[in-house]
């Protein structure tokens, strides 16, 4: 077990068969997961996988069409009291662009029950954000920092960030993650941040939720997930059981060789297989590719 800053296994966010439908299309379906306190979790998946929908359900901006979502044990939809514990930064950090950062800090104080304006000012000063310039005129990186500082001024116990770094250049991205990690180390806030970029998150997150095609493909503590997956290379595999393998996540074959990414449930002793440890990125890519590998050769009129 990896140490956490939270109090043991308290659950911050729990969903049970949660679903949300737009018209006849399910944006999220049969979504069951939980997020323990003190974690920094990555919500990973391709665009359109349902990441934003899940975050909007968690912050109570959307009403579930199926199942339940609970944050600190409460249903977030139409619950203004519970909202005080949740910080949310939506995609592209929408702020009132004509307001200055200083004005936004004041406005936040009037709109929120709990508000640490001094903390926000100190953080913005440290980052060199001009207080008197409309935030619409700041750089994307600075605007993201303002949005983060405002979200943290609420002193939330859960911070939800929707694609916080997607539109930032590499330097601004690093600076954003630096302030996020520094602040979270101090406050112990549980974080759930969505991204379609995995590389940034590998060192930041210790918990993972992989969404694809509106469904949860994989969820758990990063250390555990990495530890229980392996890549096997060996003679062509016919699909029979392999000792120690709970499931084959992804397989590719040549006429005589098979490469498998597997979830293990014990030691793999068959000497025919060469066993390699995998990175978090290997695991995520295998689960994302799973089910979407049916390429459209016939549609393109080319041989498979």
């Amino acid at each position, binding site marked *: 077990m990896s140490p956490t800053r939270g109090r043991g296994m308290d659950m911050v966010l729990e969903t049970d068969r949660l679903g949300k439908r737009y018209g006849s299309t399910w944006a999220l379906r049969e979504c069951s997961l939980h997020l323990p306190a003190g974690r920094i979790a990555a919500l990973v998946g391709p665009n359109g996988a349902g990441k934003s929908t899940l975050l909007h359900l968690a912050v109570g901006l959307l009403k579930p069409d199926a199942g339940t979502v609970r944050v600190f044990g409460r249903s977030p939809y139409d619950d203004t009291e519970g909202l005080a514990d949740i910080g949310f930064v939506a995609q592209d950090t929408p702020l009132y662009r004509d307001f200055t950062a200083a004005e936004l800090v004041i406005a936040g104080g009037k709109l929120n029950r709990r508000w640490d304006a001094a903390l926000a000012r100190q953080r913005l000063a440290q980052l060199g954000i001009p207080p008197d310039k409309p935030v619409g005129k700041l750089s994307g990186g600075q605007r993201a920092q303002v949005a983060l500082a405002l979200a943290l001024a609420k002193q939330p116990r859960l911070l939800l960030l929707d694609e916080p770094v997607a539109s930032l250049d590499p330097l601004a991205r690093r600076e954003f*993650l*630096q302030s996020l990690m520094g602040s979270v180390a101090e406050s112990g806030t549980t974080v759930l941040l969505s991204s379609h970029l995995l590389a940034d998150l590998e060192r930041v997150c210790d918990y993972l939720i992989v969404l694809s095609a509106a469904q949860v493909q994989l969820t758990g503590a990063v250390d555990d997930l990495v530890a229980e997956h392996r890549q096997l290379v060996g003679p062509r595999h016919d699909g029979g059981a392999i000792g120690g393998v709970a499931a084959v996540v992804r397989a590719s074959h040549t006429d005589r060789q098979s490469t498998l990414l597997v979830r293990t449930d014990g030691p793999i002793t068959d000497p025919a297989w060469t066993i390699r440890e995998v990175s978090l990125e290997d695991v995520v890519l295998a689960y994302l590719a799973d089910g979407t590998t049916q390429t459209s050769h016939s549609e393109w009129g080319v041989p498979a």
Partner: protein
Amino acid sequence: MIEFVLDSRSKVNTYMQLVQQVKQALRVGLLTPGDQLPKVRDVAQSLAINPNTVLKAYRELEIEGLVGGRPGVGTFVQRTLAGASLPNQAELRDDLVAWLHRAQTAGLTAEDVIALVETTLRATLTDDAPQKEPA
């Protein structure tokens, strides 16, 4: 105070890299008992890494008895890994430099020297087998 650096191309995971850097600093005498390790918050922020990773590294060092946490104050070095040999190293190093100059004059390249050192080291240490290096 030391500053952590991460090797992004290393296969060693992040928490282990932190552990190894502290041990290395203890070995060469860069950290000595009483010294404070960087605060978790500062490490998390400067490296943009999960604070839980830093905590995990510090806990591992604590379990090994190398450091101790004082709640609300920080984490401090309790034990050193620098062997009693540390003061003798300067003299040995001078001998080694002189020897390396002789090797160079004799026409040995850097690779030749490394190969010679490695084979000799293996042969010599096998001869004196049960002799164990102090931890």
